[in-house]
């Protein structure tokens, strides 16, 4: 699947806000793909101490699609995403209220175990963070090892395929994860997230620390993965949103300004603030 490359001419020719053709979804290789789920935020509020960062936000993320969250720094994009897998509450003095629904299950319900939430919703961070003391294999297997002692080699291989990294590391699975390049490390983190077969994957500016070629590889991955997993991607790069996302939501100061099909948001936004942002007048 890594042989599928977006031709360079296409990249050069298309104007910045035009979406590239979406490659066909690949059929699931070895096993039944886990069911992707839809995510819905209802009146989400979040605080850092006294600072009210997300204000009554309601938003839908369709299953099997990629949705981008864009907005200037400080608009709360990362916070929203961290509320979805309940990582936000890990920070001291951080608090969140409201409903986050995975299909029809409220993740903030008292009866729900937060570790179960995080297993079902994977996360890829801005800066690649493979476990430094573990090998490539162990990194991918880390999540699997939490639930069962014996790890199936197949699982790891499948996850690495899913992240487009298998060919590059298949001969050095025992080498340390941090020995890889930045782009490879990030794909390793994606493989690690994929290994536990989540239904949703959150990506918080996954390519912002990477070089352009690695960025492109990550974007390809997003397009492949969305057929199996729901993807929510935070990005400050509007061209990236245009390239990978089916829908885009624009956030400003912790509030949702506008959401819609990516093409519409970039070419014909309904809100004036959206228009000013996507045309680069601020942010």
């Amino acid at each position, binding site marked *: 699947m890594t042989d599928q490359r977006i031709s360079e001419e296409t990249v050069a020719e298309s104007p910045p806000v035009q979406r590239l053709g979406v490659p066909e979804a690949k059929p699931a290789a070895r096993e039944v793909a886990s069911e992707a789920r839809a995510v819905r935020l209802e009146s989400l509020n979040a605080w850092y101490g006294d600072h009210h960062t997300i204000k009554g936000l309601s938003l839908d993320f369709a299953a099997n699609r990629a949705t981008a969250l864009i907005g200037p720094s400080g608009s709360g994009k990362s916070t929203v995403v961290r509320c979805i897998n309940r990582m936000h509450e890990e920070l001291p003095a951080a608090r969140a209220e409201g409903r986050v629904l995975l299909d029809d299950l409220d993740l903030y319900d008292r009866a729900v175990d937060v570790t179960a939430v*995080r*297993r079902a919703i994977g*996360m890829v961070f801005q800066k690649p963070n*493979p*476990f430094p003391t*573990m090998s490539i294999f162990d990194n991918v297997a880390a*999540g699997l090892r939490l639930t069962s002692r014996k790890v199936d080699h197949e699982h790891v291989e499948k996850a690495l395929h899913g992240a487009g990294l298998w060919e590059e590391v298949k001969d050095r699975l025992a080498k340390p994860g941090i020995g890889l390049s930045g782009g490879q490390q990030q794909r390793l*983190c994606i493989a*690690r997230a994929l290994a536990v077969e989540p239904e949703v994957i959150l990506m918080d500016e996954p390519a912002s620390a990477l070089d352009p070629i690695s960025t492109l590889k990550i974007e390809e991955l997003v397009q492949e993965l969305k057929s199996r997993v729901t993807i929510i991607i935070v990005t400050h790069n509007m061209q990236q949103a245009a390239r990978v996302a089916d829908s885009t939501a624009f956030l400003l100061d912790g509030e949702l300004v506008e959401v819609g099909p990516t093409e519409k948001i970039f070419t014909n936004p309904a809100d004036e603030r959206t228009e000013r942002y996507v045309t680069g007048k601020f942010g």
Partner: protein
Amino acid sequence: MEAGSLRLPPGGRSLDERSPASRAADPFFRWGLTVLATLVLALIAFFFIFLLSKAHPALSKFGVFGFVFKDNWDVSRNIYEAWSLVVGTIVTSAIALILGVPVAVAAALYVTELCPPRAKGALTILVDLLAAVPSVVYGLWGVFVLIPHLKPAEQWFSDTFAFLPFVGGSVAGPNVFIAGLILAIMILPIVSAISREVILTVPRDHKEAALALGATRWEMLRIAVLPYSRSGIVGASMLGLGRALGETIAVTLVVGNAPNVPHQIFDQGYTLAAVIANEFGEAANNPLHVGALIAAGLVLFVLTLAVNATARAVVNRGLAA
């Protein structure tokens, strides 16, 4: 920018020459400090040489190898072969590590990762306060509180677990185990403090990566925090070991001061440091005895130097990682 590499602005004459006299003092300043620092170095070298020369009579009579590895410390016959002391030193320190390091690291983990934020400060101070208690006070407490109160429990343990190696037999009042226990208490603050520092350097990124995979808190500590901190914690333990090896007063009060290799943990024993403190008075007029005690001090010095130097290297590697 290093202060040592600053150059005065060239051509700034009018400002520079405000007071030529005070300018002239500068080289003296630099020289004076350098001399002082050299003196400190010389002091250390001095140390070593002096210890060697005074230990010479004993070392030459028994040979370095004989002194360290043969077991016959007999004051009445003026024979000084220190193997029982070496073993006692190692055994008490080993017990101190076995009992003290897990507790110290657990406390460090708890305070940095698990405890409610409001309790952090108080708990940290309390653990550190253990270091403020002077050695002689620990010894006093050991003699009159620990030894009598623990004897029944020790006897029970000795009887119940007699099948284990090094366990079984009658329990002496002051013994190697009590010495190890007190040493464990004494090294707790330093091992915990350094472990705390090391654990605090674990980047949040790694902890979040573990949590985001659906790890429980303990699992996160197990896969993200502990592996990262491992070498630093080892270094901290070695520093604790260094301290345990050299501890004198508390040990001499509770170890029994019997120059025999202990066969089980509740036997009496002796350590290199304890023998020096204990026998110094009576050795005063016997140059061979004095020489032997100083040789014991030398062995102790070398041992602690080696352990501490290694420990520092390991800690620095752990913190820099």
